[in-house]
Each structure stands twice: as structure tokens, then as C-alpha cells.
């Protein structure tokens, strides 16, 4: 709870700093504030508390998820220091929006009440709508923001409708009361309809089949740093919320409901990986890769409580490699109109360290051993086989093989062209380099010692 208060004050403080003309201090103060918030959050690790009539629940799971969100925000805010150089008069707005986004993410995993969940979701979504359209002079950014806003609010509508139906069935917004009602009473039909409506919204938010169509377009049009935020922080926050809701609602659903989810996972994996093959724009490629990763994370959600450490591990691995990859993409594409893969030609000759970093990040996403992404996939496979989802695992294996092709397309493009083939000049940027290296080093460390993460649970 202290974390939430600290974050809210931090977000307001940023706006105040702008008013009292301390623009230079905004990023350092935010970074320090995030560290404080991380510390406050970590203090609650071994406690279980609830606040405001069970509106906010703090326990080990929420603390760990929030710790991940804070770390990701830390990286994203740090990247903003370079990214918003051109629009330095807006930096307070963007930074405080990101802190609000973090608050939304916090509420989305720490809720004890459906109202709080919806509020968290909306805080997160609205900040993202604004950030997606934040490059006001660029028509693509406008398009992206508009598209995301229209479709996102539609999805929110579905979720709200679902919550209302569930309230009708259980007479409560409180999660504990809902669990009580579902286990003790016979549920009317509209309870299931309610959860399926929520499912529609949640699948939209994590960009899983059949509600994934927005992702590539919105990712492509949005400013690069917003794309980073969407594909890392916003995605894992939505997955975290989905996971928490699934623990409550999946047991109450009919037995063959898990088949539906398994089917959606398989199609999500297939669609994400197949569509990524032909992309020439790296943002679209990352969008489709993100769709396939949503499929993997859904796998953990389907398995349930036993897979909790493994879901968290997968999320950490995915988000960290996402941060590392996008930092390098920012480095390469910082002043390009479009973020094409051909811009990476000859990058290995120009900056071998970052080329290797991006390669490692992509290899981690592809699941090559010793990187964290490999263990993430391995743990999920083991758990899924344990539960008897053989077909799903085989499909996941086959789609992983397909994914090698497009990840390697980028890697090979970086390494095989001479510097004279480069389509662009690369501008030096220390900040992006530092963030990329930090993220990939953490990824490597948790790859070498997965116990660091797994033993937290």
C-alpha cells in the first residue's frame, strides 16, 4: 500500500517539478523515487495484508509482480531521457504518465475487488492511449493512438459488462466473496457469460488470438518508446491480471473450458509466429513475436497455481529481453522515419557490442539455452506435460522452430553486411547502450541461476 502512495506522490511531484522549473531534475528524481518505491514494495514481501475493505491486497505474489513492473518502469523512464530530447518541454507529462501507468499495473495485480481491477486497467489503458498518440505531428502516431483508443475502450466495455454479469450472479465485486459464491452455490448461466466477456477483454489486452489484430498496427505507429512500454510493461501487467483472475474463475468454469483456452493458445502461437515471418518492419516483427509470447504466458495461466513461479520467470525473461532488444532498436532507429530491418545492415561492424546484445535478446526470446528465455520455455513445457497437454506442447515446439527463422533474419542482417552496405548512419548513444547491457546481463544471470527467481516463491 505504501508503494502505491509513494508512486502516486511521485507522479504528482514530477508535474510539480515542471511547474517550479526544475525540468532537469525530473528524470533523476523519478529514478530515485522508483528505487524508493521498489524498496517499500520489497518490505512487504513476506506479509499478507488487505486495505480499504479488501480493495487492495498485498501478498508475496503481488509484491513480486510489482517489483518486476517497477524495474521495467525504471528502464523505460531511463530510456526516456534520451528519447524525449527533442520534446523536452513535454518530458514531465510523459514521465508522470509512465508512473501513472505503473500505478495502473500495480492495481491490476494487487486488486481484491473487481472495481479496483477495472480502475487499474483503465488507468493503464488511458495512459497508453495518450502515449501511443504522443507524437502529435506524426500522422501514424495519431492513427495508432486513435485505433488503440477505439478498440481498447471497446474491450474495456466488454470487461465492464462481464463484471456486471458476474456481480449479478454472485452479488459481490469482492474476489473472496466471488470465490465463496462459486464454490458453494450453483452459478446461473450468465456467470459463465460474464467471465467469457471478461475473457474477450483480457485476450485483447494481452494481444492473443482472436483479438490480436490491433497489436502490429498500434505498435508500428506508436513512438518507439511507447512500443517498448506496450510490449514489455503493459503486456506483463495484463498477463499478471489475467493470471490472478484465472485463479478465481477457471475452477468455476465447465470442465471443457480448458480445451477452449488450449485451442486459443495453439492458434495464438501459430498466428504470431507465422505472421512474423514476412515482416520487414522490426516493430511489427516484435508485435507478432509478442503475440506468440502471449501464447506461452497463457500456457502458464492455463496450468494454474503450480506454474506461478514459472509464469513469473517467463515474464521476467521476456520483459528483460524485450527491454534489451528495444534499447538497441532505439539506438539504431532513433531518428529514422520507419524502423525497417534493413536499417540493421552492417550494424555488427559499427557496434559489435550492441549487435551481440540484440542477438542475445532475440536468442533469449527464441529460447536458445543458457539464456533466460530457454528456461522459461522449459519450465512451461514440463508443467504442461505434467498436466497432460501433449498436443499443445508439440504445437509450441513446432512454432518455436518457426520463430528461429525471423529472429535469425534480424541477427543475420546485422552480421552479414559490410559497413559500406549500411543504409544509415548510426548515432552514438551511451544511455541506450547502458540500459541494453544492464537488461541483457540480468537476463544472463537469471539464465545461469534460475533459482534466484524461482526460490522467491
Amino acid at each position, binding site marked *: 500500500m505504501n508503494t502505491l502512495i509513494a508512486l502516486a506522490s511521485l507522479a504528482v511531484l514530477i508535474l510539480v517539478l515542471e511547474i517550479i522549473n526544475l525540468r532537469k531534475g525530473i528524470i533523476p528524481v523519478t529514478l530515485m523515487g522508483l528505487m524508493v518505491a521498489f524498496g517499500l514494495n520489497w518490505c512487504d514481501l513476506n506479509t499478507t495484508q488487505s486495505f480499504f475493505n479488501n480493495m487492495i491486497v498485498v501478498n508475496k505474489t503481488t509484491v513480486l509482480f510489482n517489483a518486476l513492473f517497477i524495474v521495467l518502469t525504471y528502464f523505460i523512464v531511463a530510456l526516456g531521457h534520451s528519447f524525449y530530447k527533442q520534446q523536452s518541454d513535454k518530458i514531465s507529462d510523459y514521465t508522470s504518465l509512465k508512473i501513472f501507468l505503473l500505478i495502473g499495473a500495480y492495481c491490476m495485480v494487487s486488486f481484491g475487488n473487481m472495481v479496483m481491477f477495472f480502475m487499474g486497467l483503465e488507468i493503464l489503458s488511458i495512459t497508453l492511449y495518450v502515449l501511443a498518440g504522443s507524437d502529435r505531428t506524426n500522422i501514424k502516431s495519431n492513427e495508432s493512438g486513435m485505433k488503440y483508443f477505439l478498440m481498447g475502450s471497446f474491450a474495456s466495455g466488454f470487461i465492464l459488462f462481464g463484471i456486471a454479469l458476474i456481480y449479478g450472479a454472485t452479488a459481490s465485486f469482492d474476489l473472496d466473496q466471488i470465490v465463496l459464491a462459486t464454490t458453494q452455490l450453483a452459478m446461473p448461466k450468465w456467470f459463465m457469460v460474464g467471465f467469457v466477456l471478461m475473457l474477450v477483454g483480457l485476450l485483447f489486452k494481452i494481444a492473443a488470438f482472436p483479438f490480436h489484430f490491433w497489436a502490429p498496427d498500434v505498435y508500428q505507429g506508436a513512438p518507439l518508446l511507447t512500443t517498448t512500454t506496450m510490449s514489455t510493461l503493459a503486456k506483463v501487467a495484463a498477463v499478471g491480471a489475467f493470471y490472478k483472475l484465472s485463479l478465481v474463475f477457471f475452477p468455476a468454469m465447465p470442465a471443457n473450458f480448458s480445451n477452449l483456452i488450449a485451442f486459443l493458445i495453439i492458434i495464438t502461437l501459430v498466428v504470431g509466429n507465422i505472421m512474423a515471418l514476412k515482416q520487414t518492419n522490426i516493430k511489427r516483427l516484435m508485435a507478432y513475436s509478442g503475440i506468440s509470447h502471449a501464447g506461452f504466458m497463457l500456457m502458464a495461466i492455463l496450468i494454474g497455481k503450480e506454474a506461478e513461479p514459472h509464469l513469473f520467470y517467463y515474464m521476467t525473461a521476456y520483459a528483460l529481453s524485450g527491454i534489451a532488444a528495444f534499447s538497441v532498436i532505439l539506438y539504431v532507429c532513433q531518428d529514422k522515419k520507419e524502423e525497417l530491418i534493413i536499417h540493421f545492415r552492417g550494424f555488427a561492424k559499427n557496434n559489435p557490442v550492441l549487435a551481440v546484445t540484440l542477438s542475445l535478446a532475440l*536468442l533469449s526470446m527464441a529460447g*536458445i*539455452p*543458457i539464456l533466460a528465455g*530457454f528456461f522459461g520455455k*522449459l*519450465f512451461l*513445457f*514440463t508443467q504442461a*506435460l*505434467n498436466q497432460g497437454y501433449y498436443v499443445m*506442447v*508439440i504445437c509450441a*515446439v513446432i512454432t*518455436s*522452430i518457426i520463430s*528461429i*527463422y525471423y529472429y*535469425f533474419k534480424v541477427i*543475420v542482417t546485422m*552480421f*552479414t*553486411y559490410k559497413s559500406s552496405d549500411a543504409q544509415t548512419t548510426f548515432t552514438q548513444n551511451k544511455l541506450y547502450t547502458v540500459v541494453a547491457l544492464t537488461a541483457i546481463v540480468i537476463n544472463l544471470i537469471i539464465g545461469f*541461476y*534460475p*533459482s534466484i527467481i*524461482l*526460490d522467491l516463491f
Partner: protein
Amino acid sequence: MNCIIILLIYVLGAGATLASNSKNAAKIALVTSLINAVIALMLTADYLNGGNISFVQQWISNPNITLSFVVDGLSLTMLLLTTLLLPIIILASFNTLYSKANQLYALVLFMAFAMAGTFLAQDGLVYYIFWELALLPIFFIGLLWGSDEWKVRKRVMITFFIYTFAGSLFMLAAFAYLYTKTGSFAWTDLSQVMLSTKEANYIFMAFFLAYGIKIPVFPFHTWQANTYEKSPTIGTMLLSGLMLKMGVYSILRWQMPIAGNVSAEIINTVIVLCIIGIIYASLIALRSDNIKRLLAYSSMAHVGLIAAGAYVGNTTGYQGAVIQMVAHGFVVVGLFYLADIIHNRYDSYMIKDMGGIRAQAPKFTTFFLIIMFASIGLPGTFGFVGEFTLLYALSEKELLYALFAGTSIILGAYYMLKMFQNAVLGTPTSKVFSEITTKEYVVLGIITVVLIGLGIYPKLLTDLFI
């Protein structure tokens, strides 16, 4: 002494090579590999005296993964092959001046590290990690230092990577399934697991996809000839001399012990596939006009025989496979080195561009003849011992198998002698073929001594693992 020292030295050597400049890189790599060869021999002495050279350490508690490097006869033989063959391969690469040699040799040493780890690891997951790690360096070696245009090379190497990676992911799924049955990845637990025939069939097929592609067994061989041809010679030697041994070794170490009660039809199908591969590859080799492709297909034929013997699953097959793996490792490195020497003089791999070498370079011709005879399996050479044992093992299973597999010797003799006749004898070309240098003499000399020495007294090797 502990076997993990070898792995550490390879990694440190790779780091040192990367940090050095292009000039000294090859020398540093050579020294590293020589140090490891000596250490491996010392480890062998230690092992034979009953010393404990294994390394076991808990890595991850849940899932239960142990960093275990346990040495037994089989892994020690493979470790010796790796550590002894690597200095020869590096020495053989001195002929060619590579750009950015420090990166190349660092990758070579890193690959040796991964392969040594594969041979030593006794925990399924650690083994899998090393297995995959070996793939990345060879991908980059082929991609960045290979021959031909970017576009062609890129396509060939990506095909190779995806192909092999695809196979190994099925192996990973098999390991994950086995873990759900036993709660452990350790070899000692996995080899004792009781599987129903149906389970064993699926596990066997998953492993077969990984190993069949790596070895390669017909019909998974399509990546091989192109990859061998486009890779630089050092990459081809690593691939054919060592990397495909990982596949055969894994059959003996993992596939047969774990999925032992697989149904007889599947075993027979797999053996028949291997034999089809032997004849098919021999016939293509017969028609090849490029010496590197010819050797690639000849290698496929020989390894097909090894795989067939390994899948027989009895003691004779096991022994024959191990002996022939060592023999084939030395023979194929020797053959590719000979091809590289010819390429250096003639600047071509095409057989039609060669001829009349014998008159200009008698020493070279002698070495060529000896190594070629070892490849065909002439009695007295090391190649004979392994090939004979393998054919004997096949005849124990089914006489017809041995008959068909035996054609590989006849066909092998035919295409090798035909190549020898066209390339080394024949009418001289306008180009001058200078006699071999001291460095080349040393490399070929070592290989010849090994092949003839072990051919006459194979007990030296067989004592290790029987």
C-alpha cells in the same frame, strides 16, 4: 584432477583468443587445445588408475537439475577424440589466413567447450544445453567465414541451423516428458525409467529426430552437403570430425538406454533408413565432381553405418560404433585437409581441374593413399577394425542388413579410387603442384600414425571403454 578443468580451459582460451589480435589468435588457440590434449591424457591415466575425476554439483533445485560431469569409458573416449583432434584441426587451418582470426578461433574453442560438455554431461538438461551451445559457433563460423555469396551462404546456414534446432527441440520435449515421469534429469535415473512400449516409441522417435538430423540419417541429410561445401575448411572439419559424433554418442548414451524397449518395427525401420542412407550417399558420391561434396557424401555413408551399428543395440554394435567414431574422426579430418591442400594449390575443388599430382608431389600422394585406404577400411588400418565390427554386429541382427551395408565398402572403394585416379594420377594440369610443407607434413604424419598404429593395435583404445 577433475574433468571440469578441460571445460574451464576451453572457455578461458576462447576469451584469451578473442582478446588477442588476429596474428596471434591461431597460436593461442593451438596452445590451449594442446594443453587440453595433455590434460585429457592425464585424466585418462588418472581414470585408469581408479581415480575419481567426476564433477557433481546441484544447480537448480526445482526443477531438479544437477551440474554433473561424470566420466566413464564412453565419455572419456569421446573426450579424448575431441581434445586430440582439435589441435590437429587448428594446425590444419594454418594454411588459410582468415580475416578476424581472433573471433574465428574464439568460436572454435567455444565450440570445443560445448562439445566436450556434451560428451561429459550426465544430466539430461545440462547435456541439452551444451548440445545447443555447440550449434551457435558453427553457425557463425559458416556464416561469416564460409565461401560463396552472402545470399547463398545465408540460406544454407539458416537451413542448417533451423533443421538441427528443430530436431533438438523434440529431444527437449522428450526430456521434459521424462522429467514428469522421474522427477530428475540425471542419467542414472533416466536410464532406469520404466516406459511402456508406446511411451518408449514416442520418446525414441523424438530422440531420433534430433540425432537423425545431426548425424545425418536419410532422409534428414539435405542440409549436410551444402553446409559442408559452404563452410570454411575448419568448420567442415569440426562438423564432420566432431559434431556429428555428438549424434552417434547420444544414441549410445541416451537414446538406447532410455528408450530401450522400443518396438522392434521402429528399430528395424531406423536401421533400414540408415542403410538406405549408406547406399544412397555412396551413389551420389560416385557422381560428385566436387571433391568437398564427394567427401561430404562419403562421410554420410560411413556415419550411416556407424548409426546402424549403434541402433542394433548389442555389445558388438556398441563397440564397433565407438571404434569407428574415433577412426572416422581422424580419417575425415585427414581427407578434408587433403582436399584443402589441393584447393590451396589449384584454387578449385572441382575434380576435373586436378590431375598429375603424383609426379610432382610423391609425399602428398603417399599420405593421400594411406588416409584414403583407411577411409575405405583396408585391413591394417584403423578404419577396418571399426567397419568390420559394425558389419558383424549388423549380421548378428539380420544377415541381410550386413549384406546391404557391406556394399558401402565396395562402393566406397569405387568412388574413392576413381577420385584418386582422376585427381592425383591422370594427366598433369598446367598448374604447378608444390610438395607439402613441414606443417602439412606434421598434420598428415600424426593422422597417419594414429590410423596405422590403432589399426595394428586397437586394444589401446578398446581397453578404455570395454
